[in-house]
Each structure stands twice: as structure tokens, then as C-alpha cells.
């Protein structure tokens, strides 16, 4: 069925379709279009900056983030780091068990941000219509995902710094044997888990389901891949399960070159590949769902 239209509106309607300061139409000169596009890109960058600033503020106000990303890794690192003494132990690659856990728990921060903080945050935004409001306000398809990526990485950096600052006076922080491998492992691991977090947040239908799935992924990964017993004391079945877990790979890629117990080239390559794939998939998914 068609609508009615007041006949006298035709010319006025034309006026609204071509406002003096409105975006250019296809009949506008190329230079005009280019100017509008450049202005649009500048506005897009401004929107991302505003979103990142807002998201960073919100990250530090979120109790779940403060608990899982900041408090949980520090508290558990302090407890378990002191549970196996300070003597070098073969089960810990011949290193000080406390240092083993200090190096390992940096990746717990990464997993908490990627598997708990971001999925719940993003799913909650979508469930409550926050993403819709952002989209309607002209925030571009990728700007929200980019803001989450930056907010996640900054949260990981801050929480990692807090963890090392707490560990330093208690257990000491070992000097990395290979700085660049540790840095690449941490950076690639952070990008991989933050991307996984963005992906989960866009896939899961509600904040509750994101929380359930996130915790279900986080705790086994945490116990088997970073914060639990060392692989040497695990049963063979557990070792087989733990081996290919993403967090296990990230932890190996960081811990081994840090403590000088291996160069972990295989895990490092795997983590970099995982980061690239997860980043691409989450970017694609975000562009499809942000409308």
C-alpha cells in the first residue's frame, strides 16, 4: 500500500534532498566529493579518539574488569608464587617457581581481558542498544571495535604493570633472557586474546551468556595454560589437552624466553598467526554487526 503525499510538497522535498551544506551528491564536482570524504575521515578519526577516551574511563570503572583483569591475577600470583618455595626446581624448568609464576601470570591478565572483560562488555552493549545508539550517532562500523581493541590493550598494559609492581618487592622480577621474544609474545598474545574477546562479544547474544561462556573458557585455560601446575607434573591426558590451548601457547611464548628455558619459536609463530587470524575475523564480524 502506498502513502499519501501532499502534492504541494514536491518542490520542498527537492529542497531537503540537496541542502547547501549537506553531504555531496553524485552530481557534485569531484573536488567537492573529495573534500567531503577527507572531512569524513577526519571526523571518523575524531570519533575513534572520543570512543577510546570514553571506553578507557569506563574500563577502570567496571567492577568485573577491576576484579578479573587487575585483582585476580595479582592475588593468585601472590598465593601460588609462594607455594612451591624459591629453590630452582626441575618441574619448573630448573627455575625459581616464584619467577615461573610471575612470568606466567602476565598472560593470565591477557586471558582475563580477552575472555571475561571484553565479551561481557560488548555483549552487554549490544543487548542494551548501546551499539545501536553509537551507530545511529555516526560512529563508523569499525570505530567501536577499534576502541575496544585499544581499551583492551591499555587495560592489559596497566594490569601487567600493576602485577609486576606487586611482584617486584615480594618475589623479584627476573630479567628476560630474550627481550624481543618476550615483547613479541606479549604483544601478539594481547592482540590475539583481545580480538577473540571482541569476536565473542559480537557472537554471544547477551551479557549473561557472554559471562558464562567467557568464564567457561577462562578457568580451564587459566589452570591448564598459565596459572596452574607446571606441565611437568600434569598427567599425560591433561598435558595433551593443555598443549594446544591458545593461552598455553601464549604463556610458553612469553615464559620460556623470559626465564631462559627455551626460545619457544614454535609457540611464538603460532601466537602471531593466531593474532592475525583473530584480528581479521573479529574485524570482519564487527563490521557486519555494528549496524
Amino acid at each position, binding site marked *: *500500500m502506498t502513502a499519501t503525499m501532499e502534492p504541494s510538497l514536491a518542490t520542498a522535498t527537492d529542497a531537503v*534532498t540537496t541542502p547547501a551544506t549537506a553531504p555531496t551528491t553524485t552530481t557534485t564536482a569531484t573536488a567537492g566529493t573529495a573534500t567531503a570524504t577527507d572531512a569524513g575521515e577526519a571526523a571518523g578519526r*575524531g570519533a575513534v579518539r572520543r570512543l577510546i577516551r570514553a571506553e578507557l574511563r569506563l574500563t577502570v570503572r567496571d567492577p568485573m574488569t577491576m576484579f578479573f583483569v587487575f585483582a585476580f591475577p595479582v592475588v593468585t600470583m601472590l598465593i601460588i608464587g609462594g607455594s612451591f618455595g624459591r629453590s630452582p626446581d626441575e618441574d619448573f624448568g630448573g627455575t625459581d617457581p616464584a619467577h615461573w609464576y610471575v612470568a606466567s601470570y602476565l598472560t593470565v591478565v591477557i586471558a582475563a581481558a580477552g575472555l571475561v572483560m571484553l565479551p561481557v562488555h560488548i555483549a552487554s552493549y549490544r543487548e542494551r542498544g548501546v551499539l545501536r545508539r553509537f551507530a545511529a550517532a555516526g560512529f563508523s562500523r569499525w570505530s567501536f571495535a577499534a576502541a575496544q581493541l585499544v581499551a583492551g590493550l591499555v587495560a592489559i598494559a596497566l594490569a601487567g604493570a600493576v602485577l609486576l609492581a606487586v611482584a617486584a618487592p615480594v618475589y623479584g622480577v627476573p630479567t628476560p633472557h630474550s627481550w624481543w621474544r618476550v615483547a613479541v609474545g606479549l604483544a601478539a598474545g594481547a592482540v590475539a586474546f583481545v580480538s577473540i574477546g571482541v569476536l565473542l562479544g559480537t557472537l554471544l547474544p547477551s551479557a549473561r551468556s557472554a559471562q558464562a561462556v567467557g568464564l567457561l573458557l577462562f578457568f580451564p585455560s587459566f589452570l591448564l595454560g598459565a596459572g596452574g601446575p607446571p606441565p611437568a607434573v600434569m598427567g599425560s591426558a591433561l598435558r595433551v589437552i593443555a598443549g594446544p590451548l591458545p593461552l598455553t601457547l601464549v604463556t610458553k611464548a612469553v615464559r620460556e624466553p623470559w626465564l631462559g628455558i627455551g626460545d619457544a619459536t614454535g609457540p611464538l609463530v603460532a601466537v602471531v598467526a593466531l593474532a592475525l587470524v583473530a584480528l581479521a575475523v573479529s574485524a570482519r564480524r564487527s563490521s557486519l554487526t555494528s*549496524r
Partner: protein
Amino acid sequence: MVRGLRKAYGERVVVDDVDLDVAAGEVVGLIGANGAGKTTTVECVQGLRRPDAGTVRVLGLDPVRHADRVRRWVGSQLQDSALPDRLRVHEAVELFATGRARPAGELLDQFGLAERRRSAFASLSGGERQRLFLVLALLNRPRLVILDELTQGLDPAARRGVWSAVRQLRDEGTTVLLVTHELDEAEALCDRVVAMRRGRVLDAGPPARLVDRHAGWARVQFGWPPGDRGDASGIGDAGEAGELVRAMRALPGVRDVSVHGDQVRVHGDRPVIAHVGAELVRRGRIPADLRVELPDLEAALLRLLRDDDTSTTAPTATSATPAYHAGPFTAELIGAQQ
């Protein structure tokens, strides 16, 4: 400009072949019951949903293909949306403000939120949230403002304040597309309204004209002095009172005359108001309590919906009388009224 818009969710068609024009500086209201397709229509206009068929142009651009460019010129207050719980009012304004934003303090003052600028979104009442959404919708000097259920949850004073802001927008030349259940709101604010049902447009036009088309009746009521009654049970057939009732029934356009105690009610077409007045004056009986009741947009919409029910349940009649379809019928109906 919307032409032939169609949108379905699975098997369910929610917008079906809708045309809609909104001229620059106009305030247009989409009215209709729940499930009429109003919100989906404006979501397609905003580029938030991709139409299954049809053409949508906003400021000359396709709002899906050129979403980023179009949305910079559109301010919207959406139904069922929110802001992050811990975002404060002034932070929300900073987040949404682009380079051409109005001074935030001015808008927060205008909508009574200046005192709450440091409050978190979660701590705002429903009315305060609505007002904040309005502030955000108007913040960047939009050329088109889309307001979906804008006064939902507002108290009467706040509602009037929002109405005044919409009128100010119109005065400034901003185009407003309003989605509302509140027909008094549509009547008070809109230059034109578009009545929708089951994804289709039933009719469109200025509110007063819709009322004339679909609820062109009036009721005149006045008291008759007790001493002049024909008998003890009320105004009967005898005497001047009885003769008055008969005279009223004979007036052009009168459909019914009824008596309730000492009150006479005359119901009929709109010209009845003048005829009844003239008859009373001619008789030298000028009641001090004469009241005129006119239908409003709600009455017109109800009639429109009832007629649509009739036309959909009686296909033969529909084909004979293509009610509310396009311009020609509308013109025909207006002609008949005149």
C-alpha cells in the same frame, strides 16, 4: 524520500510498500498502533536496517551505502536504546559532540540536566534519560531529527518542555520525523501525520485534515431550563421543549438528538454546530452552558483503523472503494467532504 519500502523479518512482513516524503523544515509524525512498522521504517531511514526492497534517500543519499555521511546530519532519539551505565552525563555529551556541536551547557540547561551533569547514566530516572537522549539528538545541529517515542516516561511538565524544544527546532528550519503513540503529541507538534498499520500507510496529511476526513462529526450540548420541560420525566414531545427537539432533528447534518436529564445533545456533521447555534438564537434561547465537543486525532485514527478492518475483512467492498490508497482517492474524499 521513501519509495516502495519493504522490510520483513523472516516470514513476517513489517513494512510493506511504504512511500513517505518529508520536506525540509517539516515536522512529520508516524502514528499507529504497536507493530504498525513505524520504528522499522525510521530505522531504514537512518540506515540502521537494510530494506528488502524500495528506495530510501536522506539528504539525497542512500542511508545504508553512505551511512557515515548521512548520520552526521541526522540526530536521533531511538526507542529501546541506552548508554553505558557508568558514563556520566557530561561525558556522554563529550562523546557524541562533533566539531559543529552546540554549547553543551546550553542544552543541558534547556532540558533541566545541568545539575545532573556529573551523574552516571544508570542513576538517571527514566525521564532524565529521555531528556539526555534529546540533548544528544540535538547536539550536533542536525538537519534531520528522528524522535522515536520522545516523551515516553516524561512527566507533564517535562513533556511540555520537550514539545517546546521540538517547536523551536521547527522554527530553526530543522526537519523532524516523529514516531509516537501519543496522538495529542502528534496533533500538537506535527505539520503532517502518516497513519500506519501492519506495515502499510493508511493515510497521511495535516492532523486537522485527517480529523476532518475520518472523524468529521461534532456534538453540541446545552441545558434546557427545568420550567420549560414538557413533562416531569424530562423533555418530552409537548410544549416548546418538545418542539425544539423536533426542530433540532430536522436541521441539516443532524444524525441524532438525545436528552439526558436537562441536557440536550445534538450529534451530527461539523456544520451542525452553526445550525444548532443559529436555531437557538432564532428562538431567543441562548443557553449559557452550550458546549461543543469535537473529535481529535485519536478518534480519527480509531475510525481509520476500524475502516481498515472492514476493508480487509470485506475484499469485495475494498475493491469497490479503495479506501486510503493514493492521492486520487484522498482528493475524492476531500471533495466529498467539501
